[in-house]
Structures are given as structure tokens and as C-alpha cells.
């Protein structure tokens, strides 16, 4: 397992290939459906004017996402009443729902990594080649196990989106992932999809 510090350089991203097991250490942010929609509409496509603390949060996110990674995760968080937050369970959510946004978000913020599960499609793969970036697959459902690698919750933005949809800033140590889409156009997901399609065709003729 290769150990990588966040933020991550172009050279390191390019050196990683589909199938590589990686342990991430450093600071990352969570963001899923509500966050991607909000980022896209407010700051990328600008179809909605910034409201409330939108601009403050945007400025705070820029350095965190620059060269960084976003984690598709809606955690279970303890300490909500006291604001002494602690991640109790924090596995990945299904990433493909962000396919319409992800490539643009990667380019806009110079985001080098997306962590989630289930993989993403052609638009995100293209952005991985351009930025450069990579898709890092965490083990779906391994929530208690992954939460142990979250050492501290440094802060939270947009808690009004709800606990699962908020932007949690976390410090992780040896967070385990596998590269399943790389900066060279490789995608394990596209490969498995193709192979399983032809296996299905064979079974349908029986």
C-alpha cells in the first residue's frame, strides 16, 4: 500500500494507475449531492446568485480543494449538541450521481481526487486526464472501519444541508482506497462493465 500525503502533486497523480492501493493522510472535505449542485449552480454555471454565507464558504473551500480530494460521504456524526464533532461511521456513498457535476468541479477547483464508491463515467474520466486527477474507491459499507482513520473533525460548512449533506473538513490518517480511474484514461469500472455486458449476452442466449 502506497502512502500519500494530501494535497497531492501532478507527478504523484500521474504516477498512480488503476489497481494501486493507496493510504491517504492529511486534510480532506466531504461533499455529495447537495454540495455538488450548490457549487455548480452558484460558482460554476452561476445560474443562482450567492446567498447567505455562500461566498465565505467558497473562499474557505478553495485552498482545501486546490490539489486536494473530495469525499462522497454522508457520515454519522456524534457530538452534534456540543459541537465536539466525531465521525462514528463514514463509508463512501455512490458516486455516479455526481457525474453531471464532477468534471466541472475538478477543473474549477484544481481538485485532484474524488473518493467514493461504484465509480464514475466518461465525463469524470476525461477531467481526470485533464486536471490531472483520479478516482479513488473506498470500500462501500465499511463505515466503522473508515471512521477510525478520521482523526479529527476540523470544521463543518453548510450544516443546514443536513448532517449527511454538509461539508465536513476532516483530518485523516492512512485512509484506505484503491485507484479505479486514473489520469491516463484507465477505468476499472468501464472494463468490468464491458466484460459483464458480454457475459450477460452469453447468458441471455441460453
Amino acid at each position, binding site marked *: 500500500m502506497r502512502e500519500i500525503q494530501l494535497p497531492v502533486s501532478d507527478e504523484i497523480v500521474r504516477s498512480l494507475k488503476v489497481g494501486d492501493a493507496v493510504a491517504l493522510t492529511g486534510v480532506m472535505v466531504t461533499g455529495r449531492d447537495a454540495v455538488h449542485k450548490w457549487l455548480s449552480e452558484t460558482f460554476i454555471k452561476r445560474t443562482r446568485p450567492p446567498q447567505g454565507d455562500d461566498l465565505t464558504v467558497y473562499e474557505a473551500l478553495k485552498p482545501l480543494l486546490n490539489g486536494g480530494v473530495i469525499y462522497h460521504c*454522508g457520515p*454519522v*456524526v456524534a457530538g452534534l449538541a456540543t459541537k465536539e464533532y466525531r465521525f462514528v*461511521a463514514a463509508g463512501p456513498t*455512490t458516486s455516479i450521481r455526481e457525474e453531471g457535476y464532477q468534471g466541472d468541479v475538478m477543473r474549477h477547483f484544481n481538485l485532484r481526487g474524488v473518493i467514493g464508491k461504484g465509480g464514475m463515467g466518461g465525463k469524470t474520466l476525461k477531467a481526470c486526464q485533464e486536471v490531472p486527477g483520479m478516482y479513488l474507491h473506498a470500500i*462501500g459499507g465499511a463505515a466503522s472501519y473508515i471512521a477510525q482513520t478520521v482523526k479529527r473533525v476540523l470544521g463543518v460548512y453548510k450544516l443546514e444541508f*443536513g448532517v449527511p449533506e454538509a461539508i465536513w473538513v476532516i483530518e485523516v490518517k492512512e485512509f484506505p482506497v484503491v485507484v479505479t480511474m486514473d489520469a491516463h484514461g484507465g477505468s476499472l469500472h468501464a472494463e468490468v462493465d464491458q466484460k459483464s455486458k458480454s457475459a450477460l449476452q452469453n*447468458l441471455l442466449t441460453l
Partner: protein
Amino acid sequence: MLDLKEPVLELVRLTSTDLPPDVEMSLRAAVEQEEAGSAARSALETILKNVELSRAQSTPICQDTGTPIFYVYHPEGMSTRKLRQLITEAVVEATRKSYLRPNSVNALTDKNTGNNLGDEHFPVIHFEEVEGDILTIELMLKGGGCENVGAQYSLPNNELGAGRDLAGVRKVVLDAVQKAQGQGCAPGILGVSIGGDRGSGYAASKEVLFRKMDEASSDPSLAAMEQRLTQESNQLGIGPMGFGGKTTVLSTKMVGMHRLPASFFVTVSYMCWAYRRRKMIVQGDQVRYE
């Protein structure tokens, strides 16, 4: 009557944090199927470590604690209104204790209620009166990732060459498994209903998931099809997490229903490997869990 608030809270805790032994055994057998050093095997090993850790720490197996789906089988004369109140109170308390993630979101305003209560459909509670004096409450937690890859087919389906018979059922179920890839957190368990209408079909496809892993359909033709679908799904090569591998589906559960002459629905509910379902049985002052 016995105060059931704590026992129902315990049912929620157990369901969220302690994977049933039959599911764990099936995952342990699956590890041995995958090649040493493969991503598939490593995924299953991590899954098993997580199962042990969640049990030891009493923390959720998966952060998506899903839609809580309760089936309540109560004796004659028991107030379902009071049972509903008891269950909703336990759900709120379980959320406060971090056994459940606040998961109930208003579909129009996107606002999360924060306590897992919503409208009359959230949490889902089914009531049925039974003979005798035993109260049984079953709970299933089904996450959104696997719920999203569920599918319903109206047969015939010409694209797949699926006619209105068991051979056609087989084809559409395999199609659903291929389309799901790893996104429902494979290896999964398939709940399949044949017949019904669109609504009852989905309900029945979930209800069959309360069966034990090794519990086959009582209908021999369905029992044979269950085995065949599990074997053939595993020939698709999707594997744990969609990494490629031999274990895509751990088990298939099927049920036949009555249907209209014009309708032939096949409904597939995909359950993730974190197959969280538990049962609480109350008789007099005794409470036990399965």
C-alpha cells in the same frame, strides 16, 4: 404490559451495528472464493474487519442506515397507534445515540428533519394482527445505494428477449444485476417478486429479504431458479464493490404473487452486503432477539 421503549431501541441498535450471523458466514465463505491478493478479496477482508469492529464498538456497520422498515405482527387487541408511537420514539432516540444517521429529507424543500421522522411513510411501519399472544417486530435497514439499483420490469421485454414465464424472469433479473454493477455495494442479495402490481411487487420483493440466507423458496421451481440466478450472477464477473471477481450475489430470494391477466411484473430489490435485518420477539415479560 412490559415497557417496550428500551427493547425497541435495542432492536434498532442491534440491527444497525451487529450483522446477522448467517450473513457474516456467507461473507466469510465468499472471501475464500476470491483470489489471494486481488482487490476483490481485499474488499471482502475489509468488510469483515468492519463487521467485527462495528459489533465491538456498537457503531453503525454502514453510515447509510437507510430507511428503517418495520414489520409488526401483533396479537389481537394491541393498539397499533401506541406501537407506532413506541417505534417512532425509539427511532428518534436511536438517532440521538448515533445508531442511525438522520436520513429523512423533505423531497420538496430538501430539509432534513434531523430525527429520522417524516411523514406517515417514514419510517415505514407495517402492522399485521396474528393469532396467539406473541408480539414480533422485524426491522430491516436498507441503504439508498442499493435501493437506487432496484428495478421493475414489465414482461414481455423484447429487448432482452424475455417472455412471460420463468425463463423470461431469469433474463430480466440478470439484466438488473449487470446494470447494478458494484453500485449497490456488491456482493448483494436479490429479493425478486413475480407478479402483483407495481406497488405490491416492490413491497413483496423487500419482504422476501427477511428470509434467512439458506432459506429457499417452498416452491421447487422457484427454489431452483434462486440457485441458478445466484450462480449465473456470479458468472458476470462484477465482483465485490464492482472490482471484478467471483462474488457478485450471495443469495437470491424469490416469491410468486397473483397478477392481473394483462400484467406480468418482475421486481428486483437489491440488498447490499450490509444486509441488516433483525427480529424481536416479545412474550409476556420475555424479550428475545434473532
